[in-house]
Protein backbone atom coordinates (compact mmCIF):
# COMPACT_ATOMS: atom_id res chain seq x y z
CA UNK A 1 0.00 0.00 0.00
CA UNK A 2 1.36 3.39 -0.87
CA UNK A 3 -0.29 6.77 -1.29
CA UNK A 4 1.12 9.39 -3.66
CA UNK A 5 2.30 11.61 -0.87
CA UNK A 6 4.65 14.52 -1.60
CA UNK A 7 7.36 15.00 1.04
CA UNK A 8 8.57 18.52 1.79
CA UNK A 9 11.27 19.08 4.38
CA UNK A 10 10.47 21.62 7.06
CA UNK A 11 12.21 23.36 9.94
CA UNK A 12 9.80 22.20 12.62
CA UNK A 13 8.03 18.86 12.78
CA UNK A 14 4.51 19.90 13.74
CA UNK A 15 4.31 22.71 11.15
CA UNK A 16 5.76 20.38 8.58
CA UNK A 17 3.27 17.58 9.14
CA UNK A 18 0.36 20.03 9.09
CA UNK A 19 1.58 21.75 5.92
CA UNK A 20 2.34 18.46 4.15
CA UNK A 21 -0.99 16.85 5.08
CA UNK A 22 -2.95 19.92 3.98
CA UNK A 23 -1.04 20.19 0.72
CA UNK A 24 -1.92 16.56 0.09
CA UNK A 25 -5.58 17.46 0.69
CA UNK A 26 -5.52 20.29 -1.83
CA UNK A 27 -4.85 23.27 0.43
CA UNK A 28 -1.54 24.85 -0.49
CA UNK A 29 -0.25 26.32 2.73
CA UNK A 30 3.39 26.99 3.60
CA UNK A 31 5.17 26.04 6.79
CA UNK A 32 5.48 29.67 8.02
CA UNK A 33 1.74 30.16 7.39
CA UNK A 34 0.93 27.11 9.51
CA UNK A 35 3.24 28.36 12.24
CA UNK A 36 1.80 31.90 12.25
CA UNK A 37 -1.89 31.01 12.05
CA UNK A 38 -1.42 28.20 14.57
CA UNK A 39 0.35 30.61 16.97
CA UNK A 40 3.46 28.46 17.27
CA UNK A 41 5.68 31.11 18.83
CA UNK A 42 5.64 30.82 22.58
CA UNK A 43 7.80 30.88 25.68
CA UNK A 44 7.23 29.25 29.02
CA UNK A 45 9.57 28.49 31.90
CA UNK A 46 8.60 25.37 33.89
CA UNK A 47 10.83 25.18 36.97
CA UNK A 48 9.11 22.10 38.40
CA UNK A 49 9.43 20.02 35.28
CA UNK A 50 12.93 18.62 34.91
CA UNK A 51 14.22 17.55 31.53
CA UNK A 52 17.54 15.74 31.62
CA UNK A 53 18.01 17.03 35.21
CA UNK A 54 17.64 20.70 34.29
CA UNK A 55 14.59 22.98 34.55
CA UNK A 56 12.44 22.90 31.43
CA UNK A 57 11.97 25.81 29.11
CA UNK A 58 9.55 25.45 26.28
CA UNK A 59 9.65 27.68 23.24
CA UNK A 60 6.53 26.11 21.82
CA UNK A 61 2.93 25.55 22.88
CA UNK A 62 1.52 22.14 23.84
CA UNK A 63 2.00 19.39 21.24
CA UNK A 64 -0.88 19.34 18.80
CA UNK A 65 -1.94 22.89 19.55
CA UNK A 66 -0.52 24.45 16.37
CA UNK A 67 -2.46 22.13 14.08
CA UNK A 68 -5.60 22.34 16.22
CA UNK A 69 -5.60 26.13 16.23
CA UNK A 70 -4.84 26.25 12.52
CA UNK A 71 -7.74 23.90 11.82
CA UNK A 72 -10.14 25.90 13.95
CA UNK A 73 -9.14 29.19 12.36
CA UNK A 74 -9.38 27.88 8.79
CA UNK A 75 -12.52 25.85 9.37
CA UNK A 76 -10.93 22.45 8.70
CA UNK A 77 -11.87 19.27 10.44
CA UNK A 78 -9.16 17.01 11.80
CA UNK A 79 -9.76 13.61 13.26
CA UNK A 80 -7.54 12.73 16.19
CA UNK A 81 -7.44 9.29 17.78
CA UNK A 82 -5.60 7.85 20.74
CA UNK A 83 -5.52 4.15 21.50
CA UNK A 84 -5.25 2.08 24.62
CA UNK A 85 -4.49 -1.09 22.70
CA UNK A 86 -1.56 -1.40 20.32
CA UNK A 87 -3.43 -3.82 18.10
CA UNK A 88 -6.24 -1.31 17.53
CA UNK A 89 -3.72 1.43 16.78
CA UNK A 90 -2.08 -0.70 14.11
CA UNK A 91 -5.45 -1.68 12.67
CA UNK A 92 -6.63 1.94 12.42
CA UNK A 93 -3.44 3.06 10.70
CA UNK A 94 -3.49 0.18 8.23
CA UNK A 95 -7.13 0.87 7.49
CA UNK A 96 -6.24 4.50 6.66
CA UNK A 97 -3.41 3.49 4.38
CA UNK A 98 -5.73 1.07 2.62
CA UNK A 99 -8.10 3.99 2.01
CA UNK A 100 -5.29 6.18 0.68
CA UNK A 101 -5.17 8.47 3.69
CA UNK A 102 -1.66 9.49 4.75
CA UNK A 103 -1.81 9.92 8.51
CA UNK A 104 0.03 12.11 10.96
CA UNK A 105 1.41 10.45 14.07
CA UNK A 106 2.77 11.76 17.34
CA UNK A 107 5.78 9.66 18.30
CA UNK A 108 8.67 9.37 20.74
CA UNK A 109 12.11 10.25 19.41
CA UNK A 110 14.17 7.71 21.37
CA UNK A 111 13.51 4.76 19.07
CA UNK A 112 13.58 6.61 15.76
CA UNK A 113 16.37 4.54 14.26
CA UNK A 114 17.03 6.91 11.37
CA UNK A 115 18.03 9.75 13.72
CA UNK A 116 21.68 10.17 14.71
CA UNK A 117 22.27 8.55 18.09
CA UNK A 118 23.07 11.91 19.72
CA UNK A 119 19.60 13.18 18.92
CA UNK A 120 17.74 10.31 20.53
CA UNK A 121 16.23 11.38 23.83
CA UNK A 122 12.98 10.53 25.55
CA UNK A 123 11.06 13.33 23.90
CA UNK A 124 7.55 12.31 22.94
CA UNK A 125 6.15 15.18 20.92
CA UNK A 126 7.71 14.51 17.56
CA UNK A 127 5.45 14.34 14.49
CA UNK A 128 5.68 12.46 11.24
CA UNK A 129 3.47 11.16 8.44
CA UNK A 130 3.02 7.53 7.49
CA UNK A 131 2.06 7.28 3.83
CA UNK A 132 2.46 3.62 3.00
CA UNK A 133 3.26 0.12 4.11
CA UNK A 134 5.23 -2.80 2.73
CA UNK A 135 5.60 -6.38 3.97
CA UNK A 136 8.25 -5.35 6.47
CA UNK A 137 8.23 -1.55 6.72
CA UNK A 138 6.13 1.54 7.07
CA UNK A 139 6.93 4.38 4.65
CA UNK A 140 7.63 7.52 6.63
CA UNK A 141 7.69 11.18 5.71
CA UNK A 142 9.46 12.81 8.64
CA UNK A 143 9.34 16.55 7.98
CA UNK A 144 12.73 17.29 9.49
CA UNK A 145 14.44 14.78 7.17
CA UNK A 146 15.53 15.71 3.67
CA UNK A 147 14.06 12.56 2.16
CA UNK A 148 11.42 10.00 3.00
CA UNK A 149 12.49 7.10 5.18
CA UNK A 150 11.18 3.85 6.68
CA UNK A 151 10.66 2.11 10.00
CA UNK A 152 10.00 -1.57 10.51
CA UNK A 153 6.56 -2.52 11.82
CA UNK A 154 7.99 -3.22 15.27
CA UNK A 155 9.94 0.06 15.34
CA UNK A 156 6.93 2.15 14.42
CA UNK A 157 4.90 0.41 17.08
CA UNK A 158 7.54 1.25 19.65
CA UNK A 159 7.69 4.96 18.84
CA UNK A 160 3.89 5.21 18.78
CA UNK A 161 3.70 3.76 22.25
CA UNK A 162 6.67 5.53 23.80
CA UNK A 163 6.13 6.31 27.49
CA UNK A 164 6.88 9.25 29.73
CA UNK A 165 5.79 12.90 29.51
CA UNK A 166 3.43 13.52 26.55
CA UNK A 167 3.14 9.78 25.90
CA UNK A 168 1.61 9.66 22.41
CA UNK A 169 -0.57 6.60 23.09
CA UNK A 170 -0.56 5.74 19.42
CA UNK A 171 -1.95 9.13 18.52
CA UNK A 172 -2.99 9.43 14.88
CA UNK A 173 -4.53 12.41 13.09
CA UNK A 174 -5.61 13.41 9.61
CA UNK A 175 -7.84 16.03 8.00
CA UNK A 176 -11.30 14.75 7.14
CA UNK A 177 -12.73 17.95 5.74
CA UNK A 178 -10.86 20.69 3.91
CA UNK A 179 -13.03 23.46 2.44
CA UNK A 180 -12.13 24.74 -1.04
CA UNK A 181 -12.18 28.37 0.09
CA UNK A 182 -10.67 29.36 3.39
CA UNK A 183 -10.67 32.75 5.10
CA UNK A 184 -6.91 33.23 5.21
CA UNK A 185 -7.09 36.89 6.23
CA UNK A 186 -9.27 36.32 9.26
CA UNK A 187 -7.19 33.33 10.32
CA UNK A 188 -3.93 35.29 10.08
CA UNK A 189 -5.30 38.09 12.26
CA UNK A 190 -6.57 35.63 14.86
CA UNK A 191 -3.22 33.84 14.88
CA UNK A 192 -1.26 37.08 15.34
CA UNK A 193 -3.56 38.31 18.10
CA UNK A 194 -3.16 35.03 19.95
CA UNK A 195 0.65 35.16 19.74
CA UNK A 196 0.72 38.79 20.96
CA UNK A 197 -1.52 37.86 23.87
CA UNK A 198 0.72 34.90 24.80
CA UNK A 199 3.98 36.79 24.54
CA UNK A 200 2.67 39.81 26.47
CA UNK A 201 0.82 37.72 29.06
CA UNK A 202 0.77 39.23 32.54
CA UNK A 203 2.19 36.05 34.05
CA UNK A 204 5.71 35.81 35.42
CA UNK A 205 6.76 32.62 33.62
CA UNK A 206 5.11 33.09 30.22
CA UNK A 207 6.14 35.08 27.16
CA UNK A 208 8.35 38.14 27.42
CA UNK A 209 8.12 38.12 31.20
CA UNK A 210 9.18 34.49 31.25
CA UNK A 211 12.28 35.33 29.20
CA UNK A 212 13.08 38.13 31.65
CA UNK A 213 12.60 35.75 34.58
CA UNK A 214 15.03 33.21 33.13
CA UNK A 215 17.50 36.00 32.38
CA UNK A 216 17.49 36.98 36.04
CA UNK A 217 17.90 33.36 37.12
CA UNK A 218 21.00 32.97 34.95
CA UNK A 219 22.71 35.54 37.18
CA UNK A 220 21.93 33.49 40.28
CA UNK A 221 22.77 30.03 38.94
CA UNK A 222 26.57 30.04 39.39
CA UNK A 223 26.24 31.24 43.00
CA UNK A 224 23.27 29.10 43.96
CA UNK A 225 23.95 25.91 42.00
CA UNK A 226 27.71 26.03 41.42
CA UNK A 227 29.29 26.55 38.01
CA UNK A 228 29.08 22.91 36.91
CA UNK A 229 25.32 22.85 37.25
CA UNK A 230 24.98 26.37 35.92
CA UNK A 231 26.89 25.33 32.81
CA UNK A 232 24.69 22.29 32.38
CA UNK A 233 21.56 24.43 32.70
CA UNK A 234 22.91 26.84 30.11
CA UNK A 235 23.67 24.02 27.70
CA UNK A 236 20.13 22.81 28.22
CA UNK A 237 18.71 26.25 27.36
CA UNK A 238 20.67 26.31 24.12
CA UNK A 239 19.71 22.74 23.29
CA UNK A 240 16.02 23.38 23.80
CA UNK A 241 16.21 26.58 21.83
CA UNK A 242 18.22 25.37 18.87
CA UNK A 243 17.76 21.62 18.45
CA UNK A 244 15.07 19.69 16.61
CA UNK A 245 12.00 21.74 17.31
CA UNK A 246 14.09 24.91 17.46
CA UNK A 247 12.86 27.79 19.54
CA UNK A 248 15.24 30.71 19.59
CA UNK A 249 16.53 32.15 16.33
CA UNK A 250 14.97 29.42 14.19
CA UNK A 251 11.42 30.12 15.33
CA UNK A 252 11.88 33.88 14.96
CA UNK A 253 12.96 33.42 11.35
CA UNK A 254 9.93 31.24 10.58
CA UNK A 255 7.73 33.88 12.21
CA UNK A 256 9.41 36.63 10.20
CA UNK A 257 8.78 34.61 7.02
CA UNK A 258 5.14 34.31 8.08
CA UNK A 259 4.84 38.08 8.60
CA UNK A 260 6.29 38.66 5.15
CA UNK A 261 3.69 36.37 3.59
CA UNK A 262 0.95 37.89 5.74
CA UNK A 263 1.94 41.42 4.68
CA UNK A 264 1.12 40.54 1.06
CA UNK A 265 -2.14 38.72 1.85
CA UNK A 266 -3.43 41.46 4.14
CA UNK A 267 -1.96 44.28 2.04
CA UNK A 268 -0.34 45.61 5.19
CA UNK A 269 3.11 47.13 4.68
CA UNK A 270 3.55 47.57 8.41
CA UNK A 271 3.94 43.80 8.75
CA UNK A 272 6.79 43.84 6.26
CA UNK A 273 8.75 46.28 8.43
CA UNK A 274 7.95 44.16 11.48
CA UNK A 275 9.21 41.08 9.64
CA UNK A 276 12.61 42.79 9.32
CA UNK A 277 12.54 43.59 13.02
CA UNK A 278 11.73 39.99 13.93
CA UNK A 279 14.66 38.82 11.78
CA UNK A 280 16.95 41.14 13.76
CA UNK A 281 15.60 39.70 17.03
CA UNK A 282 16.19 36.17 15.70
CA UNK A 283 19.82 37.12 15.05
CA UNK A 284 20.08 38.28 18.69
CA UNK A 285 18.87 34.85 19.87
CA UNK A 286 21.57 33.27 17.76
CA UNK A 287 24.22 35.58 19.23
CA UNK A 288 23.01 34.54 22.66
CA UNK A 289 23.43 30.85 21.75
CA UNK A 290 26.98 31.54 20.52
CA UNK A 291 27.92 33.36 23.74
CA UNK A 292 26.29 30.76 25.99
CA UNK A 293 28.03 27.87 24.24
CA UNK A 294 31.36 29.66 24.68
CA UNK A 295 30.77 29.94 28.41
CA UNK A 296 30.23 26.25 29.03
CA UNK A 297 32.72 25.08 26.45
CA UNK A 298 35.50 26.93 28.26
CA UNK A 299 33.96 25.84 31.57
CA UNK A 300 34.21 29.40 32.66
CA UNK A 301 34.02 29.84 36.41
CA UNK A 302 33.80 33.63 36.37
CA UNK A 303 30.52 35.00 37.56
CA UNK A 304 30.57 38.06 35.30
CA UNK A 305 30.16 36.00 32.11
CA UNK A 306 26.81 34.90 33.47
CA UNK A 307 25.92 38.53 34.10
CA UNK A 308 26.79 39.43 30.51
CA UNK A 309 24.65 36.55 29.21
CA UNK A 310 21.79 37.53 31.45
CA UNK A 311 21.95 41.12 30.21
CA UNK A 312 21.90 39.89 26.63
CA UNK A 313 18.73 37.94 27.29
CA UNK A 314 17.17 40.96 29.02
CA UNK A 315 17.82 43.03 25.88
CA UNK A 316 16.05 40.33 23.84
CA UNK A 317 13.08 40.40 26.22
CA UNK A 318 12.85 44.20 25.94
CA UNK A 319 13.07 44.08 22.16
CA UNK A 320 10.36 41.42 21.97
CA UNK A 321 8.07 43.34 24.29
CA UNK A 322 8.30 46.41 22.05
CA UNK A 323 7.92 44.22 18.99
CA UNK A 324 4.73 42.44 20.09
CA UNK A 325 3.14 45.70 21.21
CA UNK A 326 3.79 47.13 17.76
CA UNK A 327 2.52 43.96 16.09
CA UNK A 328 -0.69 44.11 18.10
CA UNK A 329 -1.23 47.68 16.96
CA UNK A 330 -0.38 46.91 13.33
CA UNK A 331 -3.30 44.53 12.90
CA UNK A 332 -5.94 46.28 14.99
Amino acid at each position, binding site marked *: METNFAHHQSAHCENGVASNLLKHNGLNISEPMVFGIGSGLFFVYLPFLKVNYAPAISYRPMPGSIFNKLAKRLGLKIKRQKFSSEANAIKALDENLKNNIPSGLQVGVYNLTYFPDEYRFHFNAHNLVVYGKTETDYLISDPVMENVTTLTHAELNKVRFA*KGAFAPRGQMYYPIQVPANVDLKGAIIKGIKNTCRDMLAPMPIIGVRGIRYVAKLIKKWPIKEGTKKANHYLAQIVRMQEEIGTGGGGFRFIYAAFLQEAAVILGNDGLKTLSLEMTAIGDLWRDFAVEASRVYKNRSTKVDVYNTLSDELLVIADREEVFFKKLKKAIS
Partner: protein
Amino acid sequence: MKKEEVPQDKGNLSNKNMKELVYATDEKGNYTTALSTGWEPKTIALSNSIEEISERIAIAKAQVENNEVSPICYYMEFCRMDIGVLSSYVGMWQWRVKRHFKPRVFARLSDSILKKYAESFNITIEELKNFKTN
Protein backbone atom coordinates in the same frame (compact mmCIF):
# COMPACT_ATOMS: atom_id res chain seq x y z
CA MET B 1 19.79 35.52 9.22
CA LYS B 2 21.04 36.01 5.69
CA LYS B 3 21.20 33.02 3.42
CA GLU B 4 24.99 33.21 3.05
CA GLU B 5 25.29 33.22 6.85
CA VAL B 6 23.49 29.88 7.24
CA PRO B 7 26.02 27.84 9.22
CA GLN B 8 27.68 24.91 7.50
CA ASP B 9 29.68 23.62 10.46
CA LYS B 10 30.52 20.01 10.99
CA GLY B 11 27.92 18.61 13.34
CA ASN B 12 26.26 15.44 14.49
CA LEU B 13 23.99 15.66 11.46
CA SER B 14 26.71 15.89 8.85
CA ASN B 15 28.19 12.61 10.09
CA LYS B 16 25.01 10.94 8.93
CA ASN B 17 24.83 13.08 5.80
CA MET B 18 21.74 14.82 7.10
CA LYS B 19 20.95 18.47 6.62
CA GLU B 20 18.35 20.55 8.32
CA LEU B 21 16.15 23.18 6.79
CA VAL B 22 16.33 26.76 8.00
CA TYR B 23 14.60 29.98 7.02
CA ALA B 24 16.87 32.81 5.89
CA THR B 25 16.67 35.96 3.78
CA ASP B 26 18.02 36.31 0.24
CA GLU B 27 19.88 39.33 -1.17
CA LYS B 28 16.60 41.24 -1.60
CA GLY B 29 15.57 40.59 1.99
CA ASN B 30 12.89 38.07 1.03
CA TYR B 31 12.52 34.87 3.00
CA THR B 32 13.60 31.61 1.47
CA THR B 33 14.86 28.30 2.82
CA ALA B 34 18.36 26.87 2.95
CA LEU B 35 19.98 23.68 4.17
CA SER B 36 22.47 23.64 7.00
CA THR B 37 24.91 20.86 7.90
CA GLY B 38 25.13 21.97 11.50
CA TRP B 39 26.02 24.80 13.82
CA GLU B 40 28.84 24.78 16.32
CA PRO B 41 26.99 26.18 19.38
CA LYS B 42 24.39 23.47 18.91
CA THR B 43 26.98 20.74 18.60
CA ILE B 44 28.69 22.00 21.76
CA ALA B 45 25.40 22.06 23.67
CA LEU B 46 24.53 18.57 22.53
CA SER B 47 27.93 17.12 23.40
CA ASN B 48 27.65 18.75 26.82
CA SER B 49 24.43 16.84 27.42
CA ILE B 50 25.91 13.61 26.11
CA GLU B 51 28.95 14.05 28.38
CA GLU B 52 26.65 14.62 31.35
CA ILE B 53 24.86 11.36 30.55
CA SER B 54 28.09 9.40 30.08
CA GLU B 55 29.25 10.60 33.47
CA ARG B 56 26.07 9.37 35.09
CA ILE B 57 26.36 6.01 33.32
CA ALA B 58 29.94 5.62 34.58
CA ILE B 59 28.89 6.44 38.14
CA ALA B 60 26.00 3.98 38.00
CA LYS B 61 28.31 1.30 36.66
CA ALA B 62 30.77 1.77 39.50
CA GLN B 63 27.91 1.64 41.97
CA VAL B 64 26.64 -1.65 40.55
CA GLU B 65 30.13 -3.11 40.78
CA ASN B 66 30.32 -2.07 44.42
CA ASN B 67 26.93 -3.61 45.02
CA GLU B 68 25.45 -0.23 45.99
CA VAL B 69 22.69 -0.25 43.38
CA SER B 70 21.07 -2.86 41.15
CA PRO B 71 21.68 -3.16 37.39
CA ILE B 72 18.27 -1.56 36.86
CA CYS B 73 19.80 1.77 37.84
CA TYR B 74 22.66 1.31 35.36
CA TYR B 75 20.41 0.36 32.45
CA MET B 76 18.10 3.27 33.25
CA GLU B 77 21.00 5.69 32.84
CA PHE B 78 22.28 3.77 29.82
CA CYS B 79 18.90 4.15 28.09
CA ARG B 80 18.92 7.88 28.91
CA MET B 81 15.86 7.51 31.11
CA ASP B 82 15.09 9.00 34.48
CA ILE B 83 12.90 7.46 37.16
CA GLY B 84 9.77 9.12 35.80
CA VAL B 85 10.28 7.73 32.30
CA LEU B 86 11.28 4.28 33.53
CA SER B 87 8.34 4.03 35.90
CA SER B 88 5.89 4.75 33.09
CA TYR B 89 7.58 2.19 30.84
CA VAL B 90 7.27 -0.56 33.42
CA GLY B 91 3.93 0.68 34.74
CA MET B 92 4.98 0.84 38.38
CA TRP B 93 5.07 3.63 40.94
CA GLN B 94 8.30 5.59 41.16
CA TRP B 95 8.87 4.54 44.76
CA ARG B 96 8.67 0.91 43.70
CA VAL B 97 11.21 1.44 40.94
CA LYS B 98 13.47 3.22 43.40
CA ARG B 99 13.14 0.27 45.78
CA HIS B 100 14.23 -2.07 42.99
CA PHE B 101 17.48 -0.10 42.83
CA LYS B 102 18.47 -1.81 46.09
CA PRO B 103 20.60 -4.88 45.25
CA ARG B 104 18.97 -6.83 48.09
CA VAL B 105 15.47 -6.19 46.75
CA PHE B 106 16.57 -6.71 43.15
CA ALA B 107 17.94 -10.18 43.95
CA ARG B 108 14.48 -11.30 45.02
CA LEU B 109 12.51 -9.94 42.05
CA SER B 110 10.38 -12.39 40.13
CA ASP B 111 11.00 -13.06 36.44
CA SER B 112 7.73 -11.41 35.48
CA ILE B 113 8.86 -8.13 37.01
CA LEU B 114 12.35 -8.46 35.60
CA LYS B 115 10.78 -9.05 32.21
CA LYS B 116 9.11 -5.64 32.33
CA TYR B 117 12.43 -3.98 33.00
CA ALA B 118 14.29 -6.03 30.40
CA GLU B 119 11.71 -5.16 27.75
CA SER B 120 11.93 -1.48 28.56
CA PHE B 121 15.71 -1.60 28.22
CA ASN B 122 15.59 -3.71 25.05
CA ILE B 123 17.66 -6.48 26.63
CA THR B 124 17.03 -10.05 27.84
CA ILE B 125 16.30 -11.04 31.42
CA GLU B 126 19.65 -12.87 31.48
CA GLU B 127 21.51 -9.69 30.56
CA LEU B 128 19.72 -7.86 33.31
CA LYS B 129 20.45 -10.55 35.90
CA ASN B 130 24.06 -11.23 34.96
CA PHE B 131 25.41 -7.73 34.82
CA LYS B 132 28.65 -7.61 32.87
CA THR B 133 31.05 -4.98 34.01
CA ASN B 134 32.63 -4.36 30.64
